């Protein structure tokens, strides 16, 4: 089920990009951001995020596109885990004044966990699986010159991530199998503060 939805999402991304060639009334836009993933206003156990957005802007009011990112999470104050999120983004903005625009948007996609290497040691195996990601956000764009802007934003990121730990007991049932399995499904919820640059 999870993989079917993921395929559907990737198909949507493809359709969005395929729309570029027909975007006669629209313009290409992109944005690059770095930020902090924290549990709140203080940065204990904080991680970081990198993100690039590429999309099409329609009527200078809203944009549709996809994002590719790299997130680093510190979970329960313990190990650091990596997620590679790919998502669709819908964003709209409104002019506050000639040099400043307020923008609101949402990312929805899937975070891949393939960067976390599976551990197999002695009688223990640890594997990782990514999951769906949702990220609503709000921010400001400040005109830097005719074409480019700077941006800051605040958002909420919700990411599913699963850690599976299997253990084999010597002399236990089925020596070739892992006798016990912990499956820890996390729903990571973070405050996201980002700053970036785009055009």
């Amino acid at each position, binding site marked *: 089920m999870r993989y079917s939805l993921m395929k559907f999402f990737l198909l949507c991304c493809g359709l969005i990009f395929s729309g570029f060639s027909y975007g006669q009334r629209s313009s290409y836009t992109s944005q690059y951001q770095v930020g902090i993933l*924290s*549990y*709140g*206003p*203080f940065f*204990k*156990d904080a991680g970081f995020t990198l993100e690039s957005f590429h999309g099409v802007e329609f009527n200078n009011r809203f944009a549709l596109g996809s994002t590719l990112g790299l997130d680093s999470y510190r*979970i*329960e*104050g313990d190990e650091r885990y990596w997620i590679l999120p790919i998502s669709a983004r819908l964003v709209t903005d409104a002019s*506050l*004044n000639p*040099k*400043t625009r*307020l923008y609101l948007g949402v990312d929805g996609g899937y975070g891949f966990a393939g960067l976390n290497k599976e551990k197999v040691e002695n009688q223990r195996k640890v594997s990782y699986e990514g999951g769906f990601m949702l990220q609503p956000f709000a921010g*400001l764009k*400040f005109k830097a010159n005719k074409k480019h802007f700077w941006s*800051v934003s*605040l958002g*909420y*990121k919700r990411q599913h991530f699963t850690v599976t730990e299997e253990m084999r007991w*010597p*002399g*236990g*049932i*089925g020596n070739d*199998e892992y*006798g*016990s*399995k*912990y*499956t*820890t*499904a*996390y*729903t*990571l*919820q*973070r*405050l996201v503060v980002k700053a970036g640059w785009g055009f």
Partner: protein
Amino acid sequence: MKPFFQFCRFFVLLPVVLLVHGCDQKEVLYEYKVKVPVLEKMASIRQMDVSVVSPKPLATSGKIYLYKDYLFINEPNEGIHILDNKNPSNPISMSFLEIPGNVDLAVNSGILYADSYVDLLTFDLNNPTQPNLLERLEDVFESQYVYQYLSGGNEKMVVVDYKDTVINSTSSNVYFPFSTSDKIYYSNVSESIGNQNYGVGGSMARFTLANEHLYTVNNTSLHLFDVGNPRKPIFVKDIPLGWGIETIFPYKDNLFIGSTTGMHIYNISQPGEPSRLSVYTHFTACDPVVVNDDYAFVTLRSGNICGLTNDVLEVIDIKDLTEPKLLKTFTMQNPHGLGLSGDVLYICEGDYGFKSFNVSDISTIDKNLLEHLKDMKSTDVIPGPKSLIVVGKDGVCQYDYSNKGKISLLSCISKAVM
């Protein structure tokens, strides 16, 4: 300045945002496989007919016993296969004696003694194809089932099997790094039973007969039965030996009892009052014992239960039974049972095959390997009068060992493919 004010206006909302904090919701599913005992009322087991049925294929092989021209092969917890072994080249399966919970047996003067969980059963073997139940001594092996013989209300229950079971448990909590309160856990446990069945692990108990007494050992003690009247065994007493007792080997007026930590030597010239002569201690391992006049041969095997990481053959000087001394140690591969015939020692090496050594010179046993049959996976051996009987994973095979250094196959009773 205007953009700056716009920026500040936006961040007026910041305190509101700061009130909202992130957290990790955590759902843990824990699955683990365990063996869950299957209990049966001992009273119900006693009411079952101990019946003789037509021969059936060998499913698993336990202890083997040779009596005159009859070969008895225990099928753990199921009963005993009885075979006519007049011609070891062609043993004929005669019948199967169904005894629930049977793992050991011994035969004395046409009387078969066999355990059935906590009871000792006595059978008349006048017609070996149709053993007749004479006597049941109840609860004499209770200490053997110390963890498996339980009170179920007014009745005693015994563990008759184990089932492979998967236990599921779930818990959930929320992690927030600034929280000082205890984590709240919600758990839910459920159980699902798999289809597979697993038998009880191999018993350490052994039977032997000497001086009109039946001696049996379990993990912790030596049980004595007076079989002066073979048809009516009388329980005499238990002698505590310590933990890890595994095998018992009679030689002349002595009993050599192998345990995971050593070898106990008991004198039984007064059969009802065994007296301990000595205890030879070694590191923890599984250790069957065979002896001759001067030496005891002990194999120490590594394994999950046994706790040793080395596999060796020890030769112990027992000329003075009160002071056994280790003479030599030889590296083996995974030694199980062993048998001694004159100067030839046969060692079952488990999956590593079957070996024979000339032991006339104790100091050079390792240099006197006579034969190593690598394909012959073996766990126990009896050097019988007509044949060498070898038990292995694949069944029970008999060999002509008139040429002790080069045995030749006579017959095999293979296990049925289950």
